[in-house]
């Protein structure tokens, strides 16, 4: 049924830290566009009326070179556009740069739902619970096709791509319930791949995080440790194995020398690729004998194993994450 006029939304609410900044640029653009459109409309209408073929207005004009006018009405827009570009770029860069103390939350998109895991093991499908006022970084990958995680109330989205990790960084600013929508066509039920983001006050969020609902009995790192044994990773990478394999203690975040002389940072992407596409970037001095676990270890399990490896960097406290950069690395 058609809702009453007061119920019709004309503008989305602002609930994330980047939303007001994006809206500011948006309104500036609306202002400039309206000015231009109305201006052009007025000028053209005046010309149409004044110089219609039945009117006897004065039609003689000075011979003028178009160059001055052309240069002017090219340069002025160019200056305005440069300003808009810089403004937009700055806001975009800030919005996508994760805070140093951001809480990582792991998202796997697949046809046709969102699979979300919190560090303590709490697991949700479709929805996302986050604390208000604390920075969060979603670390995302797809198990099949390209999806896109879109939160209109935050004015942010980012593609979720198979084979790589991408991220979305934000701080919720207002408690409430906000739509999440898949925003990259992914098949039959693309439009049903939706959910809700619940922004909660920090104490309520902690209670939710610790609630016993069957999930969250063990942290991602603990699950990862079990998988590390189940999949026999410890058979080569554990201590005293007799197999020449790189030690993983403290590896996360450090620079790793590769065969061929380059160095790479052992971040989430590198660890994922090492597990699922073993021989792509082999550490210098080691033979490429690690098998690929593609098809055996799921994306969720890979995230848990990586959480475990991260925990090897430091004693017991959960490790802080490296920011996951959104650059394409084939």
């Amino acid at each position, binding site marked *: 049924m058609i809702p009453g006029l007061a119920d019709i939304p004309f503008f989305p609410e602002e609930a994330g830290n980047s939303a007001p900044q994006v809206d500011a640029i948006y309104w500036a653009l609306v202002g400039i566009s309206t000015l231009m459109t109305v201006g052009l409309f007025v000028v053209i209408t005046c010309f149409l009326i004044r110089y219609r073929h039945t009117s006897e207005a004065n039609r003689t004009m000075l011979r003028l070179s178009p160059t001055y006018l052309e240069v002017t009405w090219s340069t002025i827009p160019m200056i305005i556009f440069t300003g808009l570009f810089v403004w937009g770029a700055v806001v975009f860069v800030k919005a996508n740069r994760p805070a140093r103390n951001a809480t990582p939350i792991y998202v796997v998109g697949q046809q046709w739902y969102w699979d979300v895991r919190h560090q303590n093991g709490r697991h949700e499908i479709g929805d996302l619970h986050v604390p208000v006022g604390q920075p969060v970084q979603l670390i995302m990958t797809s198990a099949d096709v390209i999806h896109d995680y879109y939160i209109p109330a935050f004015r942010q989205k980012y593609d979720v791509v198979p084979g790589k990790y991408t991220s979305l960084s934000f701080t919720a600013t207002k408690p409430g319930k906000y739509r999440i929508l898949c925003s990259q066509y992914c098949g039959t039920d693309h439009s049903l791949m939706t959910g809700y983001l619940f922004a909660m006050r920090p104490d309520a969020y902690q209670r939710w995080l610790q609630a016993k609902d069957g999930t969250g009995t063990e942290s991602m790192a603990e699950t990862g440790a079990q998988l590390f044994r189940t999949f026999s990773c410890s058979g080569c990478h554990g201590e005293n194995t007799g197999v020449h394999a790189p030690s993983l203690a403290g590896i996360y975040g450090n620079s790793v020398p590769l*065969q*061929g002389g380059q160095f790479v940072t052992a971040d989430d992407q590198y660890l994922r690729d090492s597990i699922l596409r073993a*021989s*792509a970037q082999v550490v210098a001095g080691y033979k490429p004998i690690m098998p*690929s676990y593609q098809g055996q270890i799921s994306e969720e399990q890979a995230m848990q194993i990586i959480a475990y490896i991260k925990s090897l960097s430091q004693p017991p406290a959960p490790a802080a994450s490296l920011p996951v950069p959104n650059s394409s690395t*084939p």
Partner: protein
Amino acid sequence: MPRESASHIPEQFESRAQQEEADALGIWTFLSTEILFFGGLILSYSVYRVSYHAGFAEASQHLYFWIGTINTFILLTSSLCMALAVHSIHDGDVAKLRRYLVLTFIFGAAFLGLKLCEYYLDYREHLVPSVNFDPSHFLHPHAAELFLFLYFAMTGLHAIHMTLGLSALTYLYFRARRGDFSQEYHSPVKVVGLYWHFVDIVWVFLYPMLYLINN
């Protein structure tokens, strides 16, 4: 409608010179589209060559280097024959034109024949993705599969262009036999000649990219 011949200028043109100018610009424009066409494949190859440097080098070792090299010489020789064909009719010698067209065709067909043999040998070695690719031959099986996919796509596309070139040569031969070409008018020969040289140049890029890389 009267056929193009040594005496007839098509209705839309005002002069022979205009027709020749149009033919030349036409073939050059067409070749520029071909550069972009192959360019997409070459770009894809280059992107993965950088990412999978070692894997590509390893996979390249499994190709039949000597077949590729002999084929390169065959193709260059065929281009020489084609150039001589154009030169002949430029001097008005139709008999020589026909002979060189036949030679060009023979070398071109030899190239394709060897290529087919090579594909068969590749098949025997389990190098064909999706058909019988055996990853166990490789330290970097994923990169090898990407390399081989591109190898078959690039050389396959080139072979299709060669086949079309052979058809064009056949067409030229029969028109030459009918007396369509002379010193004054032999534009189609020049057009096919440019096409043939272009296909040769594409191979000159493909050969080192596919056969000559190593760590």
